[in-house]
């Protein structure tokens, strides 16, 4: 025999093993990849700028949103344009447009983050329930998985905006309703995504190895399967922020947003601008562009994050 063992060398601390290159941590590697990607940088800049404006809104303007202080200056045929006092001019109700825009950003961020958080929490819980039981297998596991996912399928079969409109209509015209509505519409996406990745992780080698060591199913699902599956869900949340901001604008455009004039919403600003579009098209263009750029920023950022965290796309 020639393929036998070499003479028994000391298997202990050998340099061949110790000097193995240390890997780069997941997040540090992801950060490095984002820095090399121009569209990712654009996304990060937009998201950062939007967030700063939203958080610092009270510092960026001395006026209050929806104050209608200068309504006397607005006539049916003309709306005062940019001046030293009002950088972006007035809106058709006589409020400062810059203030409206800045507070609109703040409102969009609040709506987007909270509704996505609702969707993520509920969706991920349902997904973890289905995926956890599905990964465990057995008759009960399969039953729970099927029951939860059929419920999610029913939600998914209703177009998300229609679902959001129905919920907002039932809950009435206020900020909470709009967030719950859009959050609910996001639930199926998160649930399916998390369940799918948990099921595929459940078939991986380390799960088999953990079962071979006698670890309990609950421990395997919570301690091993879930932490490995949560990544795509987090990335999806970033992408969903973009959708949420657009959907919030759509709902408030449709008149389902907050009825409080002191709450500045980009979507409602679009509606208000409609009947003065001939006289002052900027009133529609500004919130429209703001919505588009913000959504683009979150989309670019989310895509970059997905690529950066996905080892298969590493360059």
């Amino acid at each position: 025999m020639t393929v036998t063992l070499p003479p028994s060398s000391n298997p202990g601390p050998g340099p061949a093993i110790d000097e193995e290159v240390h890997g780069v941590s997941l997040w540090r590697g992801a950060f490095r990849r984002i820095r090399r990607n121009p569209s990712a940088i654009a996304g990060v800049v937009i998201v950062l700028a939007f967030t700063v404006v939203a958080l610092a809104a009270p510092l960026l303007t001395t006026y209050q949103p929806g104050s209608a202080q200068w309504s006397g200056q607005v006539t049916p045929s003309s709306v005062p344009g940019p001046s030293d006092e009002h950088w972006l001019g007035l809106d058709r109700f006589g409020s400062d447009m810059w203030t409206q825009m800045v507070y609109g950003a703040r409102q969009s961020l609040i709506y987007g983050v909270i509704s996505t958080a609702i969707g993520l929490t509920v969706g991920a819980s349902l997904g973890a329930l289905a995926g956890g039981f599905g990964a465990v297998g057995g008759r009960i596991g399969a039953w729970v998985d099927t029951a939860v996912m059929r419920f999610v399928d029913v939600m998914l079969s209703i177009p998300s905006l229609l679902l959001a409109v129905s919920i907002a209509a039932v809950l009435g015209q206020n900020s909470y309703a709009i967030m719950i509505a859009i959050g609910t519409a996001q639930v199926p996406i998160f649930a399916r995504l998390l369940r799918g990745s948990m099921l595929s992780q459940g078939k991986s080698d380390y799960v088999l190895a953990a079962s071979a060591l006698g670890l309990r199913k609950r421990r395997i699902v919570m301690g091993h399967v879930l932490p490995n599956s949560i990544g795509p869900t987090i990335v999806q949340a970033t992408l969903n922020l973009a959708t949420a901001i657009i959907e919030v604008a759509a709902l408030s455009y449709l008149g389902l947003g907050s009825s409080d004039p002191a709450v500045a919403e980009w979507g409602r600003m679009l509606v208000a601008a409609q009947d003065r579009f001939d006289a002052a098209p900027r009133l529609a263009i500004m919130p429209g562009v703001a919505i588009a750029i913000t959504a683009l920023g979150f989309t670019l950022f989310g895509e970059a994050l997905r690529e950066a965290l996905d080892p298969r796309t590493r360059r």
Partner: protein
Amino acid sequence: MTAQHPPVSTPTEPLLSVRDLGVRFGVRGQKEIHAVDEVSFDIRPGQHVGLVGESGSGKSVTSLAIMGLLPRRGVRTSGEVIWGGRNLLTAGRREMSELRGREIAMIFQDPMTSLNPVVTVGVQVTEVIRRHVARDKAEARDRAEELLRKVGIPDPGRRLREYPHQLSGGMRQRVLIAMALACGPRLLIADEPTTALDVTIQAQVLEVLKELVSGTDAALLMITHDLGVVAGLCDEVNVMYSGRIVESTNRDRLFAEPRHPYTGGLLESIPRLDSPRGTPLRPIPGSPTETLAWSEGCAFAPRCRNKIDLCTERTPALEVQADRKLRCFNPLSAPDHEGAVSR
């Protein structure tokens, strides 16, 4: 480490006894596939048994059946796996979960994927210890450190805080060995533990395994396609082909005088340093997919050099002979008549 287990009544009584094990995979509406059939072997305390065969010969399925880790859907098992008077094939899920890791542990082929990438090594080693032995966190931690030192990992305290991707393949396999031996199992099943490693690391890992297993009275079931591993590690060898054992004997006899043409072919297809330069390797012709169903004759017949008419007419049985068990109508002759190996 093994003091916590009840003493084995007599040293010769088998620890694990596989009796006529059969595993069938079936999808509704399709013909069942016999992955493993008529597999019987014993493992005595402290014994090192090899299960050898090509890919697809049923070695891994056999080990998963022993561990109770085969999926439940679409799989039918028959026969018995006797462990401590119980049949593991019919044991409950909870019972098996208590047994796994504590009494029977297993090491898998690919150390790159057998550790959870997002959890530190320390958590993964200690959770096994805490599951079966120590409830106390600090105690489990100390034990984990000691285990890593035992398998030859330098600076174990630091390694415990690291993630699997920060460790090399050889080191990860050592960690997996440490995890498998953490609770002092009485049987360790190693499913091709070195296949995914490069050759120099293979030798080191085997050495660690050998040292640790012979240090305890644990038995070892070594599943491999590498006869070199068998030569270095096993006392008894079972050669499998297409789901059945075709030859079963002790290591020295197997290497000195293989009787089954498949075993002979395996030995001949290994390059030898002591053969003259330029001697071509003699591979076994064909591929493992060219098999006959065992019900129609000998599965190895289509690839066999010693084939006679009987081989495709009747199914050979595993016959007990003086020095081995053999499933062949026309075995290679013993080397004292003609050099069977060194042709």
